[in-house]
C-alpha cells in the first residue's frame, strides 16, 4: 500500500513540475503587462532541444541548458514582434504556439523512437532511504527543487525588491512608468525572456525527466493549462504551486483510477484537467472584484511611447 501511495505521489510531483515551471514564467511575463499565449510552442521547442542536446552530448544537464536557451530564443522572437514591432499579442502568441509545435516536430523527426537520457534523481545516503518521506523530499531530480526555488525567488523579487516593483509598475500603468522614465519595452523584453526560459525548461523537463523520449506533440496542452494556472493563481506566485500540484494530481488521478479499473471512460479522465480548468476559470472570473484587484491593468495592451 505504502509503495503504491509513494509511486502515486512521485508521479504527481513529476506531472506537476512542468506546469509549475511554465506557469511561474508566464506569471512574470503577465505581471509586466504582456500576454504570451505561445507557452505551448516554447515548451515544445524546449522539449525537443533538451532531448536532442542531451542525446548528442550524453549529458542531461547540457540538455536542460539547451531547453532553457531554446525557450528564451523563441520568446525573443515574440518580444521582437509584439514589443518592437507592436503586433497584436494574442495573434502573435497563437502563431508562436503553431510555429513552436511545427518547428519541434521538424527538429525532432530523427529523435522519434530513440531512447532518451534520464535526468538522475538526487540520492543522499540515509536521508533518501527514510520510508515514504525520504524519496519524496530527498529523492527528486534537481529541476523539482529548482522549480520551487524559482517560485520563492519570483515571490521575493516581485514583492520585496525594486526590480519587482518596477515590473509590477510597468504592468499596472505603462504610461505612468514611461512618464517616470522607466523603459517599458526594456523591462518587458527581460520578463518575456524569463518566461520563455521557464517554458523551455518546462519542456525540457518533459523530455528529460517525465518521459525521457521524444514524441511529437508530447506537450499535450500543458502550455494552455499553465496559462490558465496564472489566472487561477490571480497572479500570486505561491498560489501557482497550489494550482500546479492540484492539476498534476488531477492528471495522475485519471491514470490511477484507470489502473484500479474504475469504470469511467478513459476519454473523460484524460479530459478532466481541461474540464477543471474551465470550471476554475468560470468560478474565478465570476468574482470580478477579486479578478480586477490583482490583474495587471495593462495586460495585453500594446505600448508605443510618444516621441
Amino acid at each position: 500500500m505504502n509503495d503504491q501511495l509513494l509511486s502515486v505521489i512521485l508521479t504527481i510531483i513529476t506531472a506537476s513540475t512542468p506546469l509549475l515551471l511554465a506557469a511561474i514564467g508566464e506569471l512574470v511575463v503577465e505581471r509586466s503587462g504582456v500576454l504570451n499565449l505561445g507557452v505551448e510552442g516554447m515548451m515544445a521547442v524546449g522539449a525537443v532541444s533538451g532531448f536532442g542536446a542531451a542525446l548528442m552530448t550524453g549529458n542531461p544537464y547540457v540538455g536542460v541548458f539547451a531547453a532553457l536557451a531554446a525557450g528564451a530564443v523563441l520568446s525573443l522572437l515574440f518580444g521582437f514582434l509584439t514589443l518592437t514591432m507592436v503586433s497584436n499579442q494574442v495573434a502573435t502568441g497563437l502563431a508562436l504556439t503553431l510555429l513552436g509545435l511545427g518547428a519541434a516536430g521538424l527538429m525532432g523527426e530523427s529523435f522519434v523512437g530513440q531512447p532518451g537520457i534520464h535526468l538522475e534523481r538526487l540520492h543522499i545516503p540515509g536521508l533518501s532511504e527514510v520510508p515514504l518521506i525520504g524519496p519524496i523530499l530527498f529523492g527528486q531530480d534537481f529541476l523539482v527543487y529548482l522549480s520551487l526555488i524559482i517560485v520563492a525567488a519570483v515571490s521575493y523579487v516581485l514583492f520585496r525588491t525594486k526590480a519587482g516593483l518596477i515590473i509590477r509598475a510597468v504592468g499596472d500603468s505603462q504610461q505612468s512608468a514611461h512618464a517616470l522614465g522607466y523603459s517599458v519595452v526594456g523591462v518587458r523584453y527581460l520578463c518575456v525572456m524569463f518566461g520563455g526560459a521557464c517554458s523551455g525548461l518546462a519542456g525540457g523537463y518533459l523530455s528529460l525527466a517525465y518521459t525521457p523520449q521524444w514524441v511529437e506533440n508530447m506537450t499535450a496542452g500543458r502550455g494552455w493549462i499553465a496559462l490558465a494556472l496564472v489566472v487561477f493563481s490571480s497572479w500570486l506566485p505561491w498560489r501557482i504551486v497550489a494550482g500546479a500540484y492540484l492539476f498534476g494530481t488531477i492528471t495522475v488521478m485519471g491514470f490511477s483510477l484507470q489502473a484500479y479499473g474504475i469504470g469511467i471512460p478513459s476519454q473523460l479522465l484524460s479530459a478532466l484537467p481541461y474540464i477543471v480548468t474551465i470550471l476554475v476559470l468560470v468560478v474565478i472570473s465570476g468574482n470580478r472584484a477579486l479578478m480586477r484587484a490583482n490583474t495587471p491593468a495593462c495586460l495585453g495592451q500594446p505600448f508605443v511611447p510618444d516621441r
Partner: protein
Amino acid sequence: MDYLLEALHVTKVFGTLKANDGVTLKVKPGEIHAFLGENGAGKSTLVKMIYGALQPTSGEFRWMGKAVTIPSPAAARKLGIGMVFQHFSLFEALTVAENIALAMPGAFDMKKLSGRIARVSRDYGLPLEPTAVVADLSVGERQRIEIVRCLLQEPKLLIMDEPTAVLTPQEADQLFITLARLASEGCAVIYISHRLEEVKRLCHNATILRHGKVVANVDPTRETAASLAKLMVGGDIHVVKSAREDQRGATRLKLDRLRLSADGPFAVELRNVSLDVKAGEVVAIAGVAGNGQSELFDAVSGERSLAQAAMLLIDGKPMGHDGVNARRNAGAAFVPEERLGHGAVPAFTLSQNVVLTRHSSDGALVKSGMVSSGGASGVSQRVIKDYDVRKGKPDPEARSLSGGNLQKFVVGRELDRRPGVLVINQPTWGVDAGASATIRQAIVDLARQGSAVLVISQDLDEIFEIADRIAVISRGQLSEAYPASDLTPEKIGLLMAGAHERKEMAHAARA
C-alpha cells in the same frame, strides 16, 4: 538678474502641427510662474520638454545659466526639476510608498522611505498614509502623493499642470499654502491653470501662450481675470445669457431613492439618490471626480438597469428597467463624459455617429432596417452648421476632430432632437473658452424652451454660470438641490468634502 530656467526660441513640431513656435520663457528662483493659454495652445508640450518627456525640434534650454539638454525625465529630476502631472502618473494597484519609491533614485529601503514620507507630509501639511493602496484614495489624496514624491527629491523647480482642476476649494487653499511656502524657500514653480482668479492670487509672473506662441508676459496681480482671458483667447469671450425665469413647469425627470451597487473594487455605490428636475430649469450636480458621477450617469441613461422601475421617472413614467433606447424614445437624451469612445465611435464618420444615438428616436434615419445615409448626413450637416463644428473634410471621422469641436458635435447631436430631458456629464471638460461658451449657451437655451436639464460637472464656475439649482454628490450620496443664489463655492466645498474627509482632516491636524 539670474534665471533658474531659460527656454530660448524653443520649437516643437508634431507632423505638420507646430505645437510650440519659438517660445522663450524665463523663470527665476522662488517665483511662481503661471502658464496660461487655451487648450492646444502648447502649454503641456512646453512643460513636457522641460521635464524631458519630449525633445524640442529646435531651440535650447538653460539651467542656472548653462545650456543643457534634458534627454529624459530621470535627467530632469537629476537637475532638480519635479513635475505633478494633470493626469497623475500613479500606479493604482501599488501603495503610496511604492509609488514614491519608483520615482526615487538609488537603493530601495521601504522603512527609511516611509519615515521620510511621513516627515515631509507633516512638514508641508500634506497628510498621507504610506501603506494605503492608491486605488482606494480620493483624487486630492492622489495629488498629495505626486507632490510629496516631487518634494522628496528636493526640487529647485516644480511644474504643476492644472493642479486644482480636481480639488475641492478647501483642498486648493491648502495647496496654495504649500506652494507659497515652497516659493519662500527658493523653489520655483511653473503653474498651469485655466482658473484666472487663482493665478491672480498665487502667481508672481504669467506667460501667455496662444497657438504655440508667447503673446504676452505680464504681472498677473496687475491684470483682471477678463484682461487675462482676452490675452489667452485673442478676443472677447461671449458671456452666457441665462435670463433666470421662475416659471417652472412640471417635473420631467425624477430620481426617487435611486440605489445602485458598486460594480468593481474601485467603483462607488449610489445610496438613496433623490432629485427632481422640472421643465425649464437647469439642475447641476457638483462634486469631486470619482464620487459616483459616472455611476449616476449610467443609472440615469440606462446603461445600467435599476432594481426598481420607479426609481427613475421620465415625464412621470417609471423607466428604471428600460434600456437607453427606450429612454431616448421617451424624449430623453444623454451626453456622456468621455466623448471619444463613449460619446462617439472614433473611427466612424460624424454622420454614422448620428445614426448610433438617433436610430430609434428619429424615424427618418433608419427605414426597415436600412440606414438612410441622406437623412444621416442631413442631420450631421445641420448640427455642424448650428453648433459651429470646425473640421477638415465634409464628413470626417470623429477622431480627426479636436476635443472642443467633437464635444460641440456630440452635444449638438442630442440638442438637435430638442429632447424633453437632457442629462449631460462634464459638458465642457477639456474644451476651450470659446467652445465652452457655445455649449453652455445651448444648454441654457434648451431649458428655457421647456426641457429639463441635468448637468453633472466638476467645474464650479460653469455650474454657477448655468445652473438654477445645485446639488452636491459625495461618496455616492446626493445632497438636497439648493437654489444657486443660496450657495457659494465655499459652501459647496464643505458639501463636497463630506463627513469622511472632515474626520480625516481633523485627524491630520492633530497629528
